């Protein structure tokens, strides 16, 4: 487990992971739209269900982490997805690439 002693919350995504994930998301939203971990994926960013599926496929390709279909209902914000990816990476015992 890639624990980072300087962080309070060991479950928090690393800044690198956050940056990379936001970059993936940015490819699906119109230029000029601000993206933060607080943005809701379907609401603020306007991603429709097909685009969300595409994004998750990219997450799987990039981070090697699959987001289970039955977790989707619980995910609303960019931060929710990030935390899930971080948790999956930790569970797998690998550090984010």
């Amino acid at each position, binding site marked *: 487990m890639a624990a980072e002693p300087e962080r309070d919350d060991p479950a928090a995504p690393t800044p690198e992971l956050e940056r990379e994930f936001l970059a993936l998301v940015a490819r699906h939203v119109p230029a000029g739209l601000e993206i933060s971990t607080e943005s*809701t994926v379907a609401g*603020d*960013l306007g991603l429709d*269900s097909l685009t969300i*599926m595409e994004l998750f496929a990219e997450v799987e390709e990039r981070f090697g982490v699959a987001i289970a279909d039955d977790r*989707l*209902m619980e995910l*609303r914000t960019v931060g929710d997805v990030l935390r899930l990816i971080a948790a999956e990476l930790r569970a797998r015992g690998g550090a984010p690439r």
Partner: protein
Amino acid sequence: MSDLTIGEALEEAAKRAEPTRGYTFVRDEGQAEPFFSFAGVERASGRYGGALQALGLRRGDRVALVLPESDEFIFTFLGALRAGLVPVPMYPPLGLGQLAGYLDNAKHIVGRSGARALVTTSNIKRLLGTVEAACPTLRSVVAVEAIRSAREALRPAKVGPDDVAFLQFTSGSTSRPKGVMLTHANIAANVRAICREGLGLREGDVGVSWLPLYHDMGLIGFVLAPLYERIPVALLSPFAFLRRPALWLRALGRHRGTVSYGPNFAYALCVKRVRPRELEGIDLSAWRVAGCGAEPVRAETLRAFEEAFSPFGFSPKAFVASYGLAESTLAAAFSPVGQGARVDVVHGPTLWQDGMARPVSRDHDEAVELVRCGRPFEGHQIAAFAEDDAESERPLPERVVGELRLKGPSTMRGYFDDRDLSASAMAGGWLRTGDLGYVADGEVVPCGRSKEVIIVNGRNFYPHDIEWFSGQVEGVRKGNIAAFGVDGPAGDRERVVVVFETPLMGERERVVLAGRVRSAVQEGLGLTVDDAVAVAPGVLPKTSSGKLQRLLARRLYLAKALSGRDPPRAQDRLDLAKELLRSQLSYVATRTLGQRPAR
């Protein structure tokens, strides 16, 4: 030939089909693909049916199914049928953060169907507490895991061809989901027409499908039809397909699939998302029927698909366009197999102004391409009627646009427990489809939904076309656009309104975007848009299965309730947390406090 019930069809297939035939459940690539011969399906479904009977369910009881995994869905569905129960397929809660809307819809379907039991996974069961609390007829919510491990013997029920087999809930563009009642005879008749006449099924055919099984095309087309005809099928999860569309094409190649179906959007998704390297070594040349239906087929989508995938052996001759609706079991007409998509090229203004489909050459400036969906199946009839022809007395001549109406052995028994709605679906013995279209050379050519057509200066415009052109503008959310007409101030002509979703919030950006939408429609259709309205994502009303509700959007617009409408973003995490909690609490309450008997 006598009609077999679905249960009898399964027993016959188990007895007579080669043991290599049945359902293959395609998992993630690299994983084993479990295979069940029809005999294996008969055994498994027998155990599931026995377990349902052991719950105290009796003949004719409705049982709702919320099962995302294809194998469990099929075993429970067939088991319920053989136990004499009436299954009610429902879609699983899988939208991103849309629990409240999902639960609302689930309550409606469970309530309307009067289901006594609901079978789901233990994960989803956690979320369904409020459904159980809100539906007094529902006696138990059962986790499929318990059913899977049950060892109760099935006591087969005596079921006849005229008994209701299952309820197919469909969501219209104007109303809440309605429960279509289909009998075993409906299924047998439609399946026979589809397989023998429509597909010309032959030895060696293999079906491949990613279509959801809680929807008619997936369930009837790729679970029930193969059972009656004893052909092997490979089934993928719809979510796997949506994530990685290449999996569909790869499965077609691997299984030498010959018959596969999808709505127009599935073909467009492949063009957009499949990369050539994902198809390395894949051969699609066995694919002889690439069916399109369920939503308007666009000729340009099919051309793009052909261009992208003919290098992998795909033949454009495989395209088959079909027409049908859940109220008529599944399909009513197929274009001839082996000829590819055929279009009727007509003069746009004459079509819109006069409701006449006048053929013109393809390079005519005002040419419009409409996809021909073939002749109705034997014993079935399709004709266009004037909307006010309440008794269907005067079928319109060829090439005159009217409401398409159907007649024949595939027509539903009615909507469950709703006499008024069932009566209003019929006109003098014909089923009203609400679709506009015409007949040309005996073939049906659909062109839109009649209630939604916008008439400007005597010209008819179809919302699909206006929305398609609006969706080409960058920054507009494709598929989240509603075009409709409203009465002008003097009632003289309809004003054309386009409401589109965009994540852009800035006032200036939105004004610019609205201007671009206007020009796109002007250039594409020669139609002036009177009002183009930008709204936040999620504001436009949709059915929970994702179909846009144009007429509802129109009502909200007129009530000036659209821009003030709460998009999902206004509903914060707290609401979600509350809804989750409520759901789980009422589940606990019904279980442990004994507010209602567990069974």
